[in-house]
């Protein structure tokens, strides 16, 4: 989780990731940031994020993103 927050803060320093719950729906992060985020996550956690998982519900908060990573790690 810490590692994820680091990545997130590096990508979008203006956003408060600890509390924000509508990252995508509220347009706090755009699709380019999501792209960077995905490739960072894939590198850092050694997972593959399939395109079907890229939906707002999975990226709306740091917690949700973390859940996604955990789920993917399990699948592996």
């Amino acid at each position: 989780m810490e590692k994820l927050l680091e990545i997130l803060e590096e990508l979008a320093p203006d956003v408060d990731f600890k509390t924000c719950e509508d990252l995508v729906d509220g347009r706090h992060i755009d699709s380019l940031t999501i792209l960077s985020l995905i490739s960072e996550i894939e590198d850092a956690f050694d997972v593959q994020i399939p395109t079907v998982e890229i939906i707002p519900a999975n990226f709306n908060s740091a917690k949700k993103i973390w859940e996604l990573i955990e789920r993917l790690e399990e699948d592996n």
Partner: protein
Amino acid sequence: MSYFNKLYAFLFLPAVVFLYNIVPKKIRPIILLIISYIFFFMYSKKLVIFIIISSLSIYWAGRGMRKLNDKRDEKLKQVEKEEKKAIKEKYRTYKKVILILTVLFNFSFLFFFKYLGFFTSIVNKISSLINVSCHFKIVEHVAPIGISFYTLQAISYLVDVYHDKIEAEKKMFKVMLYLTFFPTLVEGPITRYAEVNQSIYEGKTVTYDHFCYGYQRILWGFFKKMVIADRLNVFVKTVFSCYMDYSGLTLCVGAVFYTILLYMEFSGTMDVVIGSAEMFDISLPENFRQPFFSKNISEFWSRWHITLGLWFKDYIFYPVSLSKPVKKITGVIKKIAGMRVSSLVMGGIALACVWFLNGLWHGAGWKYLFFGFYHFTLILMGDIFEPAIVWLCSKFHINRQGKSYTIFRIIKTSILVFIGELFFRAPGLAAGFKMVKRILTNFHFYGFFDEIAFLGMDITDYIIIGLALLVVLVVSIYREKKISVRDKIKEKLIALRWCIYYALIFTILIFGAYGTGYEPVAPIYADF
């Protein structure tokens, strides 16, 4: 039968509701299916065969993939952990073959009906340029109604089944109804199977409340279309067809009016469509979210024709940007130039694909490709210069969240959209450039009022349009603040509520632009 046909709204729809309510719950979805096919048949006659083929192909492909899943799971139980990965991989390949073949199969119809003529003309041009004597006859076919819309839905179904996002449907008629459902057939919204499959097959009785609620929305759509869009039609048509006769200022007004017309026509259609579905307690996704409050072009496209944008995002943008070749390229770039540049390249490639296809989707023609390219450039520029603008703003102490800056951005975005729509509506790409040239070289206020005096609108028309747009604006502001105007009306006393309805009805009846001297706007998106 257009959705704005009085026959549709006040004869067809009530008849369908009546029929739907008197039959047993179980066969209601089948009634919907039959009616949808009748609806399709009224437009396209025997071309109905193509939507049937598409439906069947995705149904069987879905079933096939599901069977492969079952087989795979069975095998997985029997083998050791080490072999599991290989088996998974093997079945994934099988499924991929089915997916690709079916997608290509469905695309081939779309290509045949919409793009064959365009591409043969390109091939002919090229062959004449390089002096090869081959000339193909250009064949134009009348396409089945809604083919651009239902093909995208078919593909979303296939891809979602492939990724196990949804389970392949067992019942054939359900897949058929998903593609053909009559409100969404002609102009969308482009739905996803997961979104509608609950409500569409439930067969709930149409209640009095839903019936009224649906009509409320339908009336709102009629208001936008008949009072505003149809009134602007003659003006827009004349300006765009004889653009060389008008000054730059009039052409600017024409482009703005066309954009308003397009918005009112398309979003009005969506109101009728969504209202129709609401009667059956089926909630369809919204296609518009106050697009003219957007602060940049990329936001505009998340508020305008939303379902199309989402389709491109989910099925083109992410798959392309996360595909292996793109990842490889960006991996290298990341090492050299850093994260930001690499994600820009990654997004840029995907964005180029999206906008190439988006342009093409709207029609086979250079102006549509240019339209796509124009918006691609604007969005990419926005991304590239974002840090520079942030830096400039802080340098000049401009509050980026401030009201005046926001209004500036909204106006800027709208102007960019107007320019895009000018090309979109122009009789061709060359004509579009000629119009822009005229705007730049022939812009003067002199004689403007004389010019627009003969464009079919007098002062009262402008007043009506102004007032009607004001009403739309107020409703939009409420919506933007997440206040539902419909709920507000619901809370009111019955007398007041009815007064609102009567006012709306009579506004349409009296101030609608129909009858002698007017020409209703033909459904614009039905041709795409």
